[in-house]
């Protein structure tokens, strides 16, 4: 456990040593602030009377945050393992008393902590509404958990792809491709039979997120994200292990 935390803290420290992390935090915050303002002023229009503040503004912003995270996440995860290879530090890790599982979990944890920080920062905006009005905190919590689960599954997918690529840029673009595919895969099923459509729409990262955003806390959705994370973490462990044996 100590080793996992050690890897995670080192990951975070190095992330904040580079301007990338700061720029990503600032950009995401700035973009979401614009959307937050737009949603809020839309809500203030007389036409939207009768709709809930939480639903329109908070859930709306988290919905957009999901999309922005999808765009930004590959840039954060691309260097997770590719850079260890480039700097040769992977050999330091392999020759240390530390298992591959600990290494992969540490990297995943580091990334997840970074996302938590990001979510905390963007949640300050809806939280500011609490000064003037009441919000449906249950729905916000469900949405927040959904966003965290979503981003941590992005991290697991990005981690796996960085374990199979040599260049950060190829890792980034492949991760983006995979994430985007999993995001819109439910569209693929629209013209096919009912069963196929159900499978495709079940696989979609977006669909499970939407129901959480609406305040429907279904354990099946939570389990879906946990399963995706576990699956890609396992693949990364296998991949690194195979690299030691056959690479």
């Amino acid at each position, binding site marked *: 456990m100590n080793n996992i935390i050690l890897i995670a803290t080192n990951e975070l420290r190095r992330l904040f040593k580079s301007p990338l992390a700061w720029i990503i935090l600032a950009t995401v915050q700035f973009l979401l602030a614009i959307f937050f303002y737009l949603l809020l002023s839309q809500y203030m229009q007389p036409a939207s009377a009768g709709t809930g503040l939480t639903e329109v503004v908070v859930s709306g912003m988290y919905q957009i945050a999901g999309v922005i995270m999808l765009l930004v996440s590959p840039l954060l995860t691309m260097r997770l393992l590719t850079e260890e290879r480039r*700097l*040769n530090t992977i050999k330091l890790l392999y020759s240390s008393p530390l298992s591959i599982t600990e290494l992969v979990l540490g990297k995943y944890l580091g990334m997840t902590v970074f996302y938590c920080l990001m979510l905390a920062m963007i949640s300050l905006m809806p939280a500011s509404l609490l000064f003037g009005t009441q919000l449906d905190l249950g729905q916000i919590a469900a949405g927040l958990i959904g966003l965290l689960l979503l981003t941590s599954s992005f991290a697991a997918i990005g981690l796996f792809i960085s374990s199979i690529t040599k260049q950060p840029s190829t890792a980034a673009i492949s991760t983006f491709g995979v994430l985007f595919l999993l995001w819109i895969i439910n569209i693929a099923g629209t013209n096919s039979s009912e069963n196929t459509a159900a499978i495709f729409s079940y696989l979609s990262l977006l669909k499970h997120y939407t129901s959480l955003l609406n305040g429907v806390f279904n354990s099946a959705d939570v389990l879906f994200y946990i399963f995706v994370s576990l699956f890609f973490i396992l693949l990364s462990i296998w991949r690194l292990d195979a690299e030691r*044996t056959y690479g």
Partner: protein
Amino acid sequence: MDNEILISVQELSRFYGEQRAIENVSFNVHRGEILGFLGPNGAGKSTTMQIICGVLAANHGSVKIAGYDINEAPRKAKEHIGFLPEQPPLYDDLTVDEYLNYAGKLRGIKKVAIAKAVKISKQRCGLENSGSRLIQNLSKGYKQRVGIAQAIIHSPAVIILDEPTSGLDPLQIREIRELMLELAEDHSVILSTHILSEVQSLCDRVLIINQGKIVLDKAMKELQNNSDKIDHIEIALRNPPALEELLNIEGVASAESNIKDMLRINFIPDIDATDAIVEKAVAENWGLYKLNPSDTSLETIFMQLTYGDNEQTQETGTTDNE
């Protein structure tokens, strides 16, 4: 010397796909021993070292570090390893202190002991004043020192250094050599290098590997005993005589002009004609101003065992193709 075996390598084989990297490599290293690992580029030195450290897995064979099998008890075994790969494994956006802290914790040093360990290893590698510098701003020699500092920080039983002196200036090389002699007092050291004189001055044992197989495993003392038999000398003369005159000296088998105005004189086996040549040079006023005894035993052996073999296999290789 303590006879405890710290590194035991048994019948190690490793393939990269179809290509054989090493085959049937076995050797032991005792406590307090410095093992010099020689071989041409691509002979399998780095592969062997990486397998010993657990960076790569072997296809066959076993490695035991301080009694622990690297596959069955990797954590225990790796606690005793300090490894410097060919390219030092450095995070260039960290400072030297941050990096050594992290490396020390990775190697299992307790939190309370880490500051002291970092201090000692910096001292040993001459990094006292570089603690707060960013690694990316360091010169190559200093990066190499940080690499060595990271390998010895937890004072492991086994230290494995892949070309530790590459990129260093002569003074730094001397410092690193002294450091290694100091370390070898109670550790085992394996070091690979291309510099034969380094092996001669540092190592207790030499291992030559060629095309994935060990072709020589001898104590340095044995090799030096062999080299007491002088089979040639090199001399430089201001007024060199005709080659025939040299051949007339008793014990001289052949003579040839060498590079840099040196004359290489080969002796008839088991006869040392050095004295006769010097006497003659003085008597005939040849102006002898330089005399190099044959000091190249390791180099000769190395060439014979590696490049000699290469030529043979290349020849058979071409006949095979035909």
